[in-house]
């Protein structure tokens, strides 16, 4: 389908830019002049977090303390944004009436990847799984957490896919299992919030003992939140990737003659 109407000429574009460019430049210069100096920090929130996260919550990674405890309700919203957008992706990329999904095709187009790539993937998969689990469960101690760990865990099957074994990935991590992982993660985070409502009378308030700062099981319910988010993010990325890759590698439009 061709777009209709007359195309925008280069001359018209340049005229528009000549009018809009100086205006944008002026606004930028005014805006940049009002900025505080580099490294200057005026906000109070950061100072409060620095004071509270370690002394009251026993977490040594402040970002995780903000995401999974002090501001946990925002994370609930973010998690369901991801959930809803992945839902939208799967809805848009479903198998249509005039298409066929060729699961029987063992030799899809990426099948013949080189030995070097396959060897690299073989090395990468265990490393990625280990790093992902480490990031998820050490969220409250070191940089990382559920989101970062979750995508590293999702990248491990992606390495198998790069090795030219996409159909095997589908057998290893079937759609129902990946979707269940995502749903368990999303529901788990919401249920942890309910735990706060039951045991601490506020939704998503910490209801577990803070423990000793620096130990694996510390910082209250932050590790549990981190695991829930990790499962959700891993599931969400795998669902989205497989939806796209199914379209690219397995789903073919039916030939006209076969209908």
């Amino acid at each position, binding site marked *: 389908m061709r777009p209709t109407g007359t195309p925008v000429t280069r001359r018209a574009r340049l005229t528009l830019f000549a009018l809009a460019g100086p205006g944008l430049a002026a606004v930028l210069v005014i805006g940049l002049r009002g900025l505080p100096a580099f490294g200057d920090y005026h906000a109070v929130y950061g100072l409060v977090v620095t004071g509270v996260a370690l002394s009251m919550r026993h977490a040594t990674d402040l970002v995780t303390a903000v995401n999974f405890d002090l501001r946990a309700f925002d994370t609930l919203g973010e998690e369901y944004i991801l959930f809803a957008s992945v839902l939208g992706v799967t809805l848009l990329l479903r198998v249509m009436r005039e298409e066929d999904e060729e699961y029987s095709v063992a030799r899809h187009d990426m099948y013949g990847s080189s030995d070097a790539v396959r060897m690299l993937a073989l090395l990468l998969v265990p490393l990625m799984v280990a790093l992902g689990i480490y990031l998820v469960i050490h969220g409250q101690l070191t940089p990382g957490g559920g989101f970062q760990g979750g995508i590293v865990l999702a*990248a491990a099957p992606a390495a198998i896919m790069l090795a030219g074994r996409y159909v095997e990935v589908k057998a290893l991590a079937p759609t129902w299992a990946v979707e269940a992982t995502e749903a368990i993660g999303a529901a788990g985070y919401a249920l942890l919030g309910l735990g706060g409502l039951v045991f601490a009378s506020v939704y998503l308030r910490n209801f577990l003992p803070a423990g000793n700062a620096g130990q694996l099981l510390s910082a209250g319910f932050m590790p549990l939140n981190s695991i829930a988010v990790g499962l959700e993010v891993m599931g969400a990325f795998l669902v989205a990737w497989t939806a796209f890759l199914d379209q690219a590698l397995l789903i073919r439009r039916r030939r006209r003659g076969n209908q």
Partner: protein
Amino acid sequence: MTVVQIIALAAVAVGGGAVALVRDPLRLTLLLGIYGMTLVFLFFSFQAPDVALSEIVVGSIGLPVIVLATLRKLADQERAHETDRDAGD
């Protein structure tokens, strides 16, 4: 501002400009991955390791996989369209 931070900012500026200038979608996708790595370097040099960790995977695997799969599908559809037309003639 330290030297490392200035280098990181310059790398992001060059990478961002390159991404905006390249027109071929396939080349653009690879460049986008490299641009993502310069962003990782930037976040890390400005002491935001949490953000850098997310950007490593999102920028170098998450986004390229989706874009490459889409490009692949589009090329397939174009080819199918052409064969359909040839068969019809």
